[in-house]
């Protein structure tokens, strides 16, 4: 189980002797249970990627903590990393190598033996329909193929929790569907899935619960029913726009929890 507690992340930018402080994530708290897909929704710059980076141990929180069962990101970085698969849109794969080689490489870095790597490769290549391009250089692959490769690599060690930042961003309809179907299947296997997105119909289709993040603040947390019950809007999209474009049609700011 994932528990984010009062997470706060402050960046300090020093320009011409003036230190500018930016609070990217403000006191964010939410939970995600195994078998559930949690969607972190928010516009660009809302703090989604920063939140996910803190959860994945890539950066340290300024205050607060993130727990995964009894482990936390401040003290158990390595254990947390062994239990998560993390993917963000700004993480790229080295285009010089093939998906097959990269799977071997990251499998070895995750302390897996050759047999385990091979069986995991067979499973993921099959599930994500990658067999046609596993021996091609990543540079030569389409955006969808690269995204599938990135997903496969992040899952090579069969993590208990996956954290994907904008997993369907820039993908065509078919690839997007295969990715969302895969995430649903992964959650059904009892794994915890946290995704961030700003595409509402994707979120509505696959997420069990949502968090709406605006300017670093978590405005809403709950299932679709919970969120709509608290709002005068009748769709998740209206609730979302209510926060980011207050006063527009369907943009009446609902009450935050």
């Amino acid at each position: 189980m994932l528990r984010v507690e009062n997470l706060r992340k402050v960046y300090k930018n020093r320009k011409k002797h003036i230190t500018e402080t930016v609070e990217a994530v403000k006191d964010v708290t939410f939970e995600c249970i195994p078998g559930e897909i949690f969607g972190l929704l928010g516009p660009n710059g809302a703090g989604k990627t920063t939140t996910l980076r803190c959860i994945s141990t890539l950066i340290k929180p300024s205050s607060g903590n993130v727990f995964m069962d009894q482990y936390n990101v401040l003290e158990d970085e390595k254990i947390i990393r062994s239990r998560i698969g993390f993917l963000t849109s700004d993480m790229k794969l080295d285009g010089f190598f093939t998906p097959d080689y990269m799977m071997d490489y990251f499998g070895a870095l995750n302390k897996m033996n050759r047999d385990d790597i091979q069986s995991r490769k067979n499973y993921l290549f099959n599930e994500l329909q990658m067999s046609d391009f596993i021996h091609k250089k990543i540079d030569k692959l389409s955006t969808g193929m690269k995204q599938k490769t990135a997903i496969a690599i992040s899952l090579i060690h069969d993590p208990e929790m996956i954290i994907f930042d904008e997993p369907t961003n820039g993908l065509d309809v078919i690839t997007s569907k295969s990715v969302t179907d895969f995430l649903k299947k992964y959650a059904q296997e009892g794994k915890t899935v946290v995704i961030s997105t700003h595409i509402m119909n994707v979120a509505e289709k696959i997420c069990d619960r949502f968090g709406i993040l605006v300017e670093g603040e978590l405005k809403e947390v709950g299932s679709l029913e919970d969120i709509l019950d608290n709002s005068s809007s009748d769709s998740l999209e209206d609730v979302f726009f209510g926060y980011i474009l207050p006063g527009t049609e369907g943009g009446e700011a609902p009450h935050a929890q």
Partner: protein
Amino acid sequence: MLSDSIIILKKELRRIFTDRRMVAMLVLLPLLMLPVMYSVMAKMGASRDSDITSFRSTICIYEGAGNEEVMGLFIEAMAAINTELEIIQLSEIDAVKLAITEKDKELLLVMPDNFHEDLEGCSTFDIAVYFNSTADYSLYAYNRIREVMDLLNGEIVSERILKQDLSEEILTVFTLNESPMQYDLAKEGSVIGKIISILLPFFIIIYLFVNSMKVGLDTVAGEKERGTLAVTLVNQVSRLSIVIGKMMSVMIAAIVGAASSVVGLIIGSKYFMGMFGASGAAISSYSMSTIHILQFAIVIVPLAVLVASMVLIVSTFARNTKEGQGMIMPLYFVVMIMGMATMQTGDVAPKWMLSTPVINSLLVLKEILMQSASWSGIVTASLSSIVFAAVLIYITLRMFSSEKILFRI
């Protein structure tokens, strides 16, 4: 931890040595560049020499007043060299000087008036020889004329001595090292080693640094730029393993590149050294014993680790490879100056040099080439490289823990 570093090292080496462009830049280019460069230089030099020596120079002579009877002696001596002699009048001297400056004529000899009196009276007179040191033909003609005149001078002196009923030996009090014996008691091979040691350590440090730069800037700064570094960071691998793995790959690439450059240098030196005649031939036949090769390796490997760590620290700090290239240039100049400093060092180096990393290793390399290195010096230089490399690796590791440095793109 070491197993993770080796996994990273293997991946980095695969990236370097299966990339055709990188292999061409790191191995083939230095291997071919120096032999091609030296052979072109040697051929062009030989062609220039042949052109100069076969050229028929125009030598103008102003005979001076009243010297008609003795001038034949000088004209005859000059006929031995490939020249066109042109007797000129006093009024033409300035015009000929201008022609020499303009490279239209090669040489002007101005004989003093009535020098036959000095010649007969056994006194000294001065001949003015005008030439242009920036014109190859003029300079060559000047040197040849000096040789001929020295010879003629000797002949005239001999005649004067004989006229006085004296022996020519009166001119020589004693000689030095004229017997056919080995007077230089330096160890066999160390003389040639000393000549090689002036240049080779400088080339080695430059090659190590340049090859580290070719690979090292891309290994972290390039990965930051491409966004591929974060993928490794979210896996179960410590940052120390990443730093060590990357450092080792830079070091191996630097050594391979430097070795290929030195092989290119050796092949090229066959052409290059040929230009220096017999001493050149001796240099190209220089060889090292197994123990000296071992000593060389003991110093070179830690030095390569130190250089790789220098490049890695810059690569880690830089936002991208372009910024890294800008940042590393001052460091490159410092290393070049260090290399140059060792070229000018005598047998006893100042203490500050012996305690300065890089410089002390280069000094020991010089001693190894001269076959006079001590094991204590070798161990000290190697340890110093290792200690400084460890400090740089520690700083790089601290940078790898800094979000500001690692994620500023």
